[in-house]
């Protein structure tokens, strides 16, 4: 009982120390990590827990981001947390609206349907430039401070403040999803992945569970999008709805470890690290990430998170062999 508490306290202490140890540059990098990790974990609910590969998760991210941008632009004086939550709810609502269509399909058809919806939203947002600003997007709104009247007021343009805001929301979101996977609905979700037909015998639960997952996953993807909007002070179709926005978390999941809960967080971190390293050779950056991507699928299908386990297994085997040899001699 005590150990997890110590771990948690330790992790929180490290997270709290980061902005003071590192400069604003790396603090901002951590904000991006928080956003991308939250987004990747939300997609992972579909991929690793329900076995559904989505090529259109940017849809929810984009709705969250545009929601936040529109609310903050047009409803001045609205508390920032309310704005962010409303945007996430909008994304969840999109999940709900689309779920009657999405629950019907599986496998590649699901992937293609999500692709279609994602691209449709991309095209629509580019077209309705009166509302969305087209490719230029929406920018330059005044982000209200994170405040409790009379208690505190934090200016979110300061790296330290936006850091705590983003990391706090991401941690809460990731924790919420972690608990969700432990609920009975979470187990139904896993059995859908393993054998949809068998779960079908349980009646309409499959449909209902899937719909709930779409909303839930959409909510947190939307939350990530809303935090993105607040952090960047700009939302544009290329940044939040482009197909590469859908691929980014997929890569994070794959590199970190598909089928695990924490893999995507590790993967997001590794991808950002890779981006930092390859920044010195920008012409080769995408090439390097593509190659790493292929190598991971081929040689490390469990992702980086499985690397430790593999190493340990290899070490044990070596130790065992050595012992066997010694006893022989």
């Amino acid at each position, binding site marked *: 009982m005590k150990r997890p508490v110590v771990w948690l306290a330790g992790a929180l202490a490290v997270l709290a120390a980061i902005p003071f140890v590192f400069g604003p540059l790396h603090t901002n990098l951590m904000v*991006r990590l928080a956003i991308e990790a939250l987004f990747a974990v939300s997609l992972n609910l579909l991929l690793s827990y329900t076995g559904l590969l989505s090529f259109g998760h940017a849809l929810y991210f984009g709705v969250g981001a545009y929601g936040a941008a529109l609310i903050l632009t047009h409803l001045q004086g609205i508390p920032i947390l309310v704005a962010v939550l409303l945007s996430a709810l909008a994304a969840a609502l999109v999940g709900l609206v689309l779920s009657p269509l999405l629950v019907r399909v599986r496998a590649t058809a699901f992937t293609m349907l999500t692709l279609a919806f994602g691209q449709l939203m991309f095209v629509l947002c580019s077209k309705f430039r009166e509302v969305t600003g*087209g490719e230029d997007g929406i920018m330059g709104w005044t982000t209200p401070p994170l405040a409790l009247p009379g208690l505190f007021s934090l200016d979110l343009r300061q790296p330290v403040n936006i850091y705590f805001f983003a990391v706090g929301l991401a941690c809460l979101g990731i924790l919420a999803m972690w608990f969700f996977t432990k609920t009975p609905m979470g187990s139904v979700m896993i059995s859908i992945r393993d054998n949809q037909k068998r779960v079908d015998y349980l009646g309409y639960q499959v449909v209902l569970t899937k719909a709930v997952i779409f909303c839930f996953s959409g909510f947190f993807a939307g939350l990530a999008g809303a935090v993105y909007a607040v952090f960047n002070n700009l939302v544009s179709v290329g940044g939040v709805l482009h197909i590469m926005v859908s691929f980014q978390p997929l890569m994070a999941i794959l590199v970190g470890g598909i089928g695990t809960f924490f893999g995507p967080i590790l993967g997001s971190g590794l991808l950002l690290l890779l981006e930092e390293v390859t920044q010195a050779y920008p012409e080769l950056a995408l090439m390097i990430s593509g190659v790493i991507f292929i190598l991971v699928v081929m040689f490390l299908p469990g992702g980086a998170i499985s690397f430790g386990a593999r190493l340990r297994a290899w070490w044990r085997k070596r130790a065992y062999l050595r012992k066997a040899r010694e006893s022989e001699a």
Partner: protein
Amino acid sequence: MRVLQRTIWWGVAATVLLGVTLGTGPAQAAGAARGFNASAVADMTGFDPAKFENPSGDVVKIGVLAPFSGDAASVGQIYWATGTWVASDINRRGGITVDGKKKKIALIKGDTMGKPANTKQAVEKLCLQDKVDVLWGTAGSHLTAIIQAEADKYKKLHLNSGSLSDTLMEGKAFTPYTFQHIWTTHSVGATLAKFFATRQERKFYILNQDYVFGHELAESFKAGLKKYVPDAQIVGEDFHPLFNKDFAPYLTKVKASGAEMIFTGDWIPDSSNLLKQSRQMGINLPVAGIFLDDINGLIAVGPEGSKGLVFASELLINFQDGIQHKWHEAWKTWAAPYNTPLYEWLGSTTGAYAESLYWLLDAMERAGSADAEKVIKVWEGDEWTGLIGQKLTMRACDHRVVRDTYVTEFVSPNKWYKDCAFMDKITTIPAEFVTLPQPKDSSRCK
């Protein structure tokens, strides 16, 4: 209308006067106010952008913000070719005098990847980690807007040579740290319209890319026609997706419309595809635009196919010009990926990019400092002689350039390219007809 124009013009003149007055102090301190002297370009033998090395020691650092990876990597390449050219030239001359000593120029890449989040990250890295003196870039108004916001935040000079949006320097978006060297969509529309006022064509078909820039450009052209060619007719207007494959359905409409001229803001590959496919379909209508100097695309349609194209630019460098020949001679030694026809001559884009950097460094030297505030003081209202001896004025109140613009018709044969038609007589459109009026909402413009 005329009253308004006159007021604006007086405004411009007054501002220039004010700027000059403000600018003379530090300029005199650093010597005489200078302009660009093409013959002063250093001996560039052996120059190669691919082999550019940053000088060591105390340097002036320029952060180059451009897409160096991804779909638009060719844009990054052009930034790098021109940036390293200017830096090498200045370095071979010994650098610029800043803080009382000669300092050389270093360039540091900041890859925007064409994405907002990466742009923001790249700017922060350049400002906080590399501690650059100037941010330079970029293509795409949404990315430029991010750089402007960050430049304002970190109080860094920002030179915009790539984004043509009219609204970047207006309203809340304005920041004193950004200078928009490149012309704006308003000027593009006005330039071409003014040019057509003296010509026969009256039926225009607008075919643009379906995104903010394409729509803005269409509006600016229509506005220009309304002003300068009231009897012109828009016989059709279509917006096609970016990176469109098949232009045939559009061209069938164009042909049926009876248009005499196609106006397009398309850039490569769309501009080349539009041209190529129309010629293949036997539609030899001339096309007017600002990205038609893609030499590969022109060669593909040949001398006949490229004849009659109308090309507008803020900078058309005459082939006889000194800097043109220096560039051309140096080009022969460049290695891949710069050993292509695109870089053979200093084109309108490469030329404008280089010009903007020369001006910036000149202002810096006259300010005697790389400090943003001091450079701003010199640059605001600065009058300067450009690459081809033209007069440039940095309008103090909105940091946009007041300058003449140029239009040319492609003819064949020409002396410089035998495989396609290319620019001939250059028509100058005086600044007074094409300059974007000063923003009314800015308190700086009184």
